[in-house]
């Protein structure tokens, strides 16, 4: 499946030049492209209440620092690191902690017998492709709702990995979590969304 394409280095250099030159289209483009994922990272680290402010501050720092941007990473990753640093220092100031939700099971434990075998049958879904699943508007809104109900840190890992095509080690750096935590969060997010589709299919 195609993930969000990162612009080529050449396109990005041009975009950065346009930003430094103050071209309004370039500002519209970067904000439209990156604001949402920056917000996702901020919410994951600092929580809903301070996220907007942290992202606004990150944008301002980024724009001021742009002439010094050395393109060692993509613009997107650079922006996400700025948000992440801002959010982490806000966490320190507010004395908050990132918490991973506990007591979670990928599939409810009562679905397995003592030896770890499933009691129930799992059937292949009739509607096999994403397009056929998404042709159903009701199902679309079920998935959207399930996504919004995920903990912010799961949404952030899922969005960066699935939608933005960011590699796991980078995600771990941005969110300051271990690779095994990131893997667990990704699996939880995917499983919750899977449950939402499964439940809908069963009805």
């Amino acid at each position, binding site marked *: 499946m195609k*993930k969000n394409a990162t612009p080529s280095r050449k396109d990005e250099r041009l975009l950065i030049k346009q930003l430094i030159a103050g071209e309004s289209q370039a*500002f519209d483009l970067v904000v439209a492209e990156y604001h949402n994922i920056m*917000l996702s990272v901020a919410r994951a680290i600092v929580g809903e209440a301070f996220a907007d402010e942290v992202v606004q501050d990150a944008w301002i720092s980024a724009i001021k620092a742009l002439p010094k941007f050395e393109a060692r990473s993509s613009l997107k990753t650079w922006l996400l690191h700025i948000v992440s640093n801002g959010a982490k220092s806000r966490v320190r100031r507010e004395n908050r902690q990132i918490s991973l939700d506990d007591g979670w099971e990928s599939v409810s434990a009562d679905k*397995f017998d003592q030896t770890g075998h499933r009691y129930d049958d*799992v059937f292949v879904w009739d509607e096999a492709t994403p397009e056929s699943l998404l042709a159903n508007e009701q199902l679309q809104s079920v998935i959207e709702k399930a996504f919004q109900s995920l903990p912010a840190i799961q949404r952030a890992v899922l969005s960066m990995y*699935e939608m933005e095509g960011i590699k796991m080690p980078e995600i771990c750096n941005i969110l300051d979590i271990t690779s095994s935590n990131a893997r667990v969060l990704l699996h939880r997010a995917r499983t919750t969304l899977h449950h939402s589709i499964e439940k809908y299919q069963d009805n």
Partner: protein
Amino acid sequence: MAECKDIAEEASNLLDGDLPFRKRMALRLHLLYCSCCRAYVQQLKQTISTITVLRPQEKDTTDTSALAKKLQEISKNH
């Protein structure tokens, strides 16, 4: 021996190719004889493809064009 529960827990890592060889083989072997788990892994795969097509986003009420304008001003005066 891998059981259904192991598949439920490791399905993402299996799909992402992020497991040591032995573990991967044990899970693959289980999938050979368990049609329920094969269907489950298939469903999870379909879920992932569906998410990447649907691309759900953070709820956000920011006026992005106002923000872009504000940043442009800051950049001019910097």
